[in-house]
């Protein structure tokens, strides 16, 4: 019950969907109230006053080719058409989706068999089907429903199958399968919710078509039998007077349009409301750069002169972040995720930012090159100075040149952060050519060099692979190669090893560390794992609930954490003897230079 209420609340939050719902409810109420309204007899003919224009006396919307009151026929007709259109759509959606889901999910022979059946149905002449139905069941509107349903099954089946086939080998489906879930449960609990948007859209786009379709069938006798009105037959009957009395078709036409529009608006709303990823707030596509709305007065502490935060070196830093505030806009106003964070990175230095999930560390990292999804993200205050220039004030062009040029990112899960449909080599080549006007061949050669540098085996053939063909570690090496493509000054690595297993994790860390040292890169390394941070970072900033609670030399903090939260983080390093290993690692780090 509360689930339904929450769903409705989400739906109504979308103003367009709410408008659509209101319109739809109005239409439905109007249709439902037809017997109660003071309408003229919808079937009473009066040939003498046929084709009266709208606003005629006694006929607000005029009369049709037999002199019947269009308003009355419209309302009674809407009643019938809604019932037929909706039930036909739902039935077609149900049957088509079942076929599509099973075919898409099962794949192989089942898929081939089902889809050949759908091919047969689709290629089957619709009229013949309709005639067969008339022969078997007789004429009538209700029987038209079967024909319309049969014809629309392929639309749903093929659309749904396409979506379901794409999901078949997705990781969450694999996971569900490994966890021993049955096929039916996976279909219903994992696949169905993900293809629901496709079903909803197809449903909302076909419903109007179904209403129109009953008009198309009426010349076979598959339509409402005279004198009963439905929107389709009204359109069809008005057709012969289309040139001299367009209102006869326009009136039902507008009604069909209103129904289609309201269904579509509601459909969009429903799709967004059921999409689990969109539950927080309005769905919106992220823009190119995080919106910056620095309101100096409203944010306490923002009055501190930029770049001169206490305890920070004013000059010489490659990157200086001061008093950064990043928020997410929610239904009840913006919620700060980063609350006035300041730190700096010297050239060639590695800064670790550590904190548990939700501490704001990733948002901080993404805020630097303004990659926080926006909406809902917004930078509300502070400065990010890179080589002295405030990135938050940079126009789109220079910012774009900086991204992947001077500042490069390595993200957490390379399976989702690499483009799944592009060869990995091409993705790196593209990064190179985005910043330097080199010929494709030259960029390709450099890609292979980079692959060699990140120690990918057989770099030339590796470049031809797609992300899903590589192991997790290999994919992350590709990401690192991509980050290195334009010899950046700063690499921001956002939990680059979290998605990898332990041995691979170590290899990647070693690689990053070695590359950083050999190429004299500065790095911001973000992790929730003290062990990882201590292994490669010079300094550490500990983040907790959007703020930096402690910052200092990595070894020092590890040895003598001052903030209780830091102590908790260190204690959370789980494995016995791990602390010793961490210590050793930091000693080694000290010996190296």
């Amino acid at each position: 019950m509360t689930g339904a209420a929450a769903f409705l609340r989400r739906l109504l939050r979308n103003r367009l969907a709410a408008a659509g719902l209101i319109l739809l409810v109005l239409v439905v109420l109007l249709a439902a109230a037809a017997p109660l309204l003071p309408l003229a007899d919808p079937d009473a003919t009066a040939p003498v006053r046929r084709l009266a224009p709208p606003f005629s006396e006694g006929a607000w919307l005029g009369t049709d080719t037999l002199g019947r009151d269009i308003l009355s026929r419209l309302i009674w007709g809407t009643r019938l058409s809604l019932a037929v259109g909706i039930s036909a759509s739902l039935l077609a959606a149900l049957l088509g989706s079942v076929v599509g889901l099973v075919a898409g999910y099962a794949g192989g022979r089942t898929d081939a068999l089902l889809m050949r059946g759908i091919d047969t149905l689709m290629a089957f002449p619709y009229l013949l089907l309709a005639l067969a139905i008339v022969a078997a069941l007789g004429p009538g509107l209700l029987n038209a429903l079967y024909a319309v349903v049969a014809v629309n099954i392929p639309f749903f089946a093929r659309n749904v199958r396409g979506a379901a086939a794409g999901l078949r080998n997705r990781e969450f489906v694999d996971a569900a399968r490994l966890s021993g879930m049955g096929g039916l449960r996976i279909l219903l609990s994992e696949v169905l919710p993900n293809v629901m948007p496709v079903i909803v859209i197809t449903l909302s786009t076909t419903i109007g078509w179904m209403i129109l379709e009953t008009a198309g069938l009426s010349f076979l006798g598959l339509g409402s039998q005279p004198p009963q009105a439905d929107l389709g037959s009204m359109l069809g009957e008005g057709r012969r007077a289309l040139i001299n009395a367009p209102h006869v078709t326009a009136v039902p036409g507008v009604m069909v349009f209103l129904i289609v529009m309201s269904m579509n608006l509601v459909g969009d709303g429903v799709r967004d409301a059921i999409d689990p990823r969109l539950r927080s707030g309005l769905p919106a596509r992220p823009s190119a750069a995080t919106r910056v709305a620095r309101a100096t007065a409203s944010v306490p502490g923002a009055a501190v002169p930029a770049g001169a935060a206490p305890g920070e070196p004013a000059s010489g830093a490659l990157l200086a972040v001061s008093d950064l505030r990043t928020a997410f806009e929610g239904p009840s106003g913006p919620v700060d995720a980063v609350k006035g964070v300041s730190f700096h990175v010297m050239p060639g230095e590695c800064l670790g930012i550590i904190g548990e999930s939700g501490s704001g560390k990733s948002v901080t990292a993404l805020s630097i090159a303004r990659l926080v999804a926006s909406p809902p993200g917004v930078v509300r205050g502070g400065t990010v100075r890179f080589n002295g220039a405030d990135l938050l004030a940079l126009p789109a062009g220079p910012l774009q040149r900086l991204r992947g040029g001077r500042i490069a990112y390595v993200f957490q899960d390379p399976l989702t952060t690499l483009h799944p449909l592009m060869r990995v080599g091409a993705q790196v080549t593209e990064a190179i050519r985005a910043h330097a006007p080199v010929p494709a061949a030259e960029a390709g050669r450099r890609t292979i060099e980079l692959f060699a540098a990140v120690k990918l085996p057989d770099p030339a053939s590796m470049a031809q692979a797609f992300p899903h063909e590589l192991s997790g570690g290999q994919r992350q090496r590709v990401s690192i190669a991509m980050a290195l493509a334009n010899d950046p000054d700063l690499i921001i690595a956002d939990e680059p090893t979290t998605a990898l297993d332990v041995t691979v994790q170590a290899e990647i860390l070693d690689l990053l560390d070695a590359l950083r040292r050999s190429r004299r890169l500065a790095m911001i390394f973000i992790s929730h794992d003290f062990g990882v941070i201590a292994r490669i970072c010079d300094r550490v900033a500990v983040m907790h609930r959007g703020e930096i609670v402690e910052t200092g030399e990595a070894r020092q903090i590890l040895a003598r954490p001052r903030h209780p939260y830091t102590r908790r983080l260190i204690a959370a390093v789980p494995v016995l003897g791990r602390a010793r290993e961490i210590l050793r690692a930091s000693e080694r780090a000290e010996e190296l230079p």
Partner: protein
Amino acid sequence: MAAYALGRILALVPVLFGLSLIVFLIMALIPGDPALAILGPYATPENVARINRDLGLDRSLPVQYLSWLGNVLSGDLGRSYSLNRPVLDEVAERFSATLILAGTALLLASVLGLLAGIVSAVRQFGLADKLVTLAVLVGISLPSFWLGLLLILLFAVRWRLLPASGMYAIYGGGDLADLLRHLVLPAVTLAIVAAGVIARLTRSAMLEVLRQDFVRTARAKGLGEGRVILGHALRAAMVGVIPVIGIQAGFVLGGAVYIETVFQWPGIGRMLVDAIAKRDVLLVQGGVLVVATCYVLFNLAADLLQRLLDPRIAP
């Protein structure tokens, strides 16, 4: 992939066989008779029997079907009694007209639908999005006979810019420019509905994709917004949109009856309707076989394209 395509094409054989059998049975079982179509009110049982004998319709159903099947296998689709000419000639003529119309409409629908979908996804909730959404909804809720006539009245009657109907001018036509002039209105009318469906699915797929991590990666690489949207997001979104285009191909191919009627386009959809009304079973069979083959090939092309785009789908 070649093996897969070959397999699909081979699968066409049972599909066509099954289709022809069902079509044949339904044509035999529904009320009505070729003789009724020929004779109209003059259809006395005596006349009907004579015509059925002349047409070979007095033989038993299995014999009729098998003799038809035998002829088809030797490349003879039979003779249409309602048009008094070989089915193959008629189907070939009509089909090329349909292909021109449907191909153009599909191209137009894909380009318009994709553009509209992309624009409205990129400008989500903006003015452009609202305008596109409105246009799309109008497009999918307009009866095509209405839109078609409206276009004729505006472009042919009022402004005299384009011909009202037909495929070629009566005199001095026949060249490509003439064909294009005749093609504009029916192709646009036919494309509108398909474009609407494609646009809506493109918008939804784009919105889905634009929220994904790899789009952020593309931005982090320093790619321009155009390249992020067209090069990365659209490419991923197309995987879901292409099968829809394939289905629209089927719709545009076989379902264009109204448009072919309104614009008097000599296409196969209208031919099939007439053939069914006249119970011209051989012509129906010929038309269905061609439409089905073409439909299956269109969808195969869509599936292959999808596989080409998405290497994750196992061949």
